[in-house]
């Protein structure tokens, strides 16, 4: 190593002018295989006030657990119409939503598979670095043995697991609390 990574700076208050060209709230095009889900929620600050100027980015594997990336060594198929990237803004109430397919399990440490999850970056004014978190799925037996969930104290794990929305097939609720008692678990990654 002879160089040092450039220091992070906040996106500032007006970054949506730079990010909006790549908004994508539907990650899976028509014909992409897998269980369709719509994940919605709110981004709130330490006072519980909505964050109306946030952007959430998503990175995920396809329904077979394959990342559309050259370093995914698994002998599985990358699907047309599914890159695994999403980017959505929050609204005046701090709400965001995106639709995708539930990812398959991907390899984790020690030869064990991870539970299905999405990788999430949160950007907003006031953050000097992005926040990194994960979304897991409800009623998923593999959550119990997931290595990343097991890094988190039991009482905080729930912040990483989406909840079913009654009456909305495929609808899942997942909220991001940036600070406070029920603060979302963020990762040093």
């Amino acid at each position, binding site marked *: 190593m*002879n160089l040092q*990574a450039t220091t992070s*700076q906040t996106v500032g*208050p007006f970054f949506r002018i*730079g990010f909006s060209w790549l908004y994508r709230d539907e990650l899976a095009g028509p014909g992409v295989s897998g269980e369709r889900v719509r994940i919605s929620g709110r981004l709130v600050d330490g006072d519980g006030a909505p964050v109306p100027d946030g952007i959430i980015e998503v990175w995920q594997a396809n329904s077979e657990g394959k990342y559309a990336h050259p370093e995914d060594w698994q002998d599985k198929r990358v699907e047309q119409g599914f890159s695994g990237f999403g980017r959505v803004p929050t609204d005046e109430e701090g709400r965001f939503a995106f639709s995708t397919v539930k990812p398959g399990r991907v390899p984790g440490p020690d030869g064990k598979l991870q539970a299905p999850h999405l990788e999430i970056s949160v950007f907003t004014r006031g953050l000097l670095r992005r*926040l990194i978190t994960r979304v897991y799925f409800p009623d998923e037996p593999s959550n119990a043995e997931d290595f990343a969930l097991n890094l988190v104290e039991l009482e905080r794990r729930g912040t990483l697991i989406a909840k079913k929305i009654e009456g909305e097939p495929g609808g899942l609720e997942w909220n991001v609390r940036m600070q406070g008692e029920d603060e979302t678990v963020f990762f*040093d990654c």
Partner: protein
Amino acid sequence: MNIRAYRRSAEGTQPKHCHPAYVSSVKRAPRKPLVYLPHTLSEITGPTFSQERMDVKACDLTKQHAGSPLGERIIVSGRVLDEDARPVANTLVEIWQANAAGRYLHSGDQHNAPLDPNFTGVGHALTDSEGRYRFVTIRPGEYPWKNHYNAWRPAHIHFSLFGPAFATRLVTQMYFPGDPLLPFDPIFNCTDDEQARNRLISLFDWETTIPAEALGYRFDIVLNGREASPMEEHGHEAR
């Protein structure tokens, strides 16, 4: 399968989440300790973008409208490298900035300075095989903000980069040499390490300056490099 992880940044070279001098961080920074996440396949992969998705006009911010924007034309170029000085090729670079008067084309920007109908202030490009990028734009103006009494941001251009992996995603800001506002800016000064801060200041560059056309500024960006690989012996590094 062993994963070849990305390195974490050196102590002091990245800002802490809460930096009270930057008032907006106080209610938005996490208070609980971050959970250290060893890298897995999920973190060493990340979104990739193809040239077909790029708008060819997006790298010249002075030619996105019928007329020329007001202000001083500049060329901002540089390389995206990893910590081993290897080029990061074909990676997306997004930029956004204020116009020459210090005003963003954003409904939330209430600064009493004129908008420029010929300037949007937004661009993007992929780096080439040597990690190079190049934007033509205008020098952004300084502008006031409400962080503290008589607060003014130094002139800056915002940069967003993806790099090769989820773990390498970076958003930063490029500043200009000799800006008298830099010592007073809580955002520029949020990083403890002085050398790390100073690397956010671009260099005036005769080599990229075009006579009678535009001044050149050079800004190289470094993304986290990789740990030495336990995988190479096992032959899984093939790409």
